[in-house]
């Protein structure tokens, strides 16, 4: 499994192919659509990430000592964004997740394209992912 850092670099390179917002958005939408949906049993209030206009659900589990994230949203752009986060962070050790600086969001040039409510949602999402990581660390 590639490191979080390597995955971030990969995404940055991916998005650098698109010059305008439309290309970036289309890429994000395609990416969102390519993600498998979250199992319905996790699409409940217990798994909901608050603070987003669209509904966002996040489910985590520890598999072979690594923290695995799965997420979904009822809005496709949101799903694309959280999909990127999941892609980068999932399946890594809790410590690596906690020590990560997520610089790819700033660099792929979508943050300025996110409306304030959407970037608040992004912040809530990242926070929630790190809170899960902290929780597992405390339990371990």
């Amino acid at each position, binding site marked *: 499994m590639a490191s979080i850092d390597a995955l971030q670099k990969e995404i940055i390179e991916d998005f650098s192919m698109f010059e305008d*917002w*439309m290309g970036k*958005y*289309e890429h994000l*939408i395609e990416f969102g*659509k390519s993600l498998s949906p979250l199992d319905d049993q996790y699409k409940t209030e217990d798994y909901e990430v608050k603070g987003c*206009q*669209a*509904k966002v659900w996040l489910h985590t589990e520890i598999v072979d000592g690594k923290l695995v994230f799965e997420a979904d949203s*009822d*809005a*496709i*752009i*949101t799903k694309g964004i959280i999909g990127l986060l999941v892609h980068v962070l999932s399946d890594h050790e809790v410590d690596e997740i906690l020590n990560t600086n997520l610089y790819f969001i700033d660099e792929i040039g979508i943050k300025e*394209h*996110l*409306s304030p*409510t*959407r970037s608040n949602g992004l912040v809530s999402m990242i926070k929630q992912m790190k809170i899960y990581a902290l929780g597992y660390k405390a339990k371990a």
Partner: protein
Amino acid sequence: MRTSGERCSSKSWITSTQVKNNKLETLEEANTIAVMALDPNKIRADFPILDQEVNGYPLVYLDNGASSQKPKAVIDTISKYYEHEHSNIHRGVHTLSGKATEKYELVRGKVRKLINAAHEHEIIFTRGTTESINLLASSLGRSAISEGDEIIVSELEHHSNIVPWQLLCEKSGAKLKVIPVDDNGNLELGAYDELLNDKTRIVSVAHVSNTLGTVLPLKEIVEKAHDQGALVVIDGAQAVPHMSVDVQDLNCDFYCFSSHKMFGPTGVGVLYGKEDLLNELPPYHGGGNMISRVTFEKTEYNELPHKFEAGTPNIAGGMGLGAAIDYIEALGYENIEAYERDLLSYALQKLKGIEGLRLIGEPEEQACVISFLLGEHHPSDVGAILDRQGIAVRTGHHCTQPLMDRYGIAGTVRASFSFYNTKEEVDILVAGIEKARSMLG
């Protein structure tokens, strides 16, 4: 005041299309129309904010329902006030204070005239619609509501016309009843008849729905409520920016609205109430200005309107509201209504042409507010792509969650227009939605 039925046949409602169709009999009539027709380009020049690019595209501002933009006259009035005229009002003996008081009180007169209230002291300045309704819920709660009483609202209300009454019900043991809305966004008046009874104390409904644009048949609602001895509160936040309001003709007991949705500044609003009712009502906030004599044993309250205006008000905001009213009156509601009706029918026709677009609500009478969904796409996806193209719409539940539940949807995309919006902007919106459709697949 023209009632809704009359409005369609009044002369102001004749559009340029009808002129072309030779429906006008005389040249004289045609000339009147030409003089009255609003020129959006001239109007747009009065609103400095409209002339800018957003995300590399010319701004298309279609979020007037949330808050309208301000003409230069309003902005200038506020800065002139702070540069030359500011002083506290209703208290100083000095010249500046006297002048500021006089000017502020002139605005009360303008508001009175705007909504045709009988007296100036029936106009209470508040912070906005929300505060006006909370004032009523609080003060009526202490004087007119007890356990077992009933309060009626409608299913299309903004949260600010639901939650204050819910709080009152929790406190007093009164019950909240809800007039349902039909599939088209009209109130089910038959159900209203059944809800009304001798326990009904208050009926509080919107004049215009902020989500669907529905114009409610207020006269009928008011009359039926009065037959049962209930008081009627109208949330006019979305009406005043679009149509002339005559509170005496409506015969409502209270009418609430916000300055910032009618081209004035934020932080100011109005509560209109009938004189005798306001006199009976206990005060809301205590403090300076609302008293006539204070001792530790007993305080006597000031007379109307000051009894409900504790503390230093938003003076500059009030001045700005005055300038906004002047602006509206210079354009003339008849012209605004005619222009917006034409714009609305153009927008509805164009939007209906978009594949997969579903209008949410097609009410019998509609103000310039349109909610829609695009296929199965989430409103926030559509809104985000429109925003990238410089088009400002609102997405979400619009503070009307019970109404969203009624339609079984989480939210809508809402385009809300004003007299400075143009048909060209409707075309840009339509092209923007088409782009969203192709991008979202």
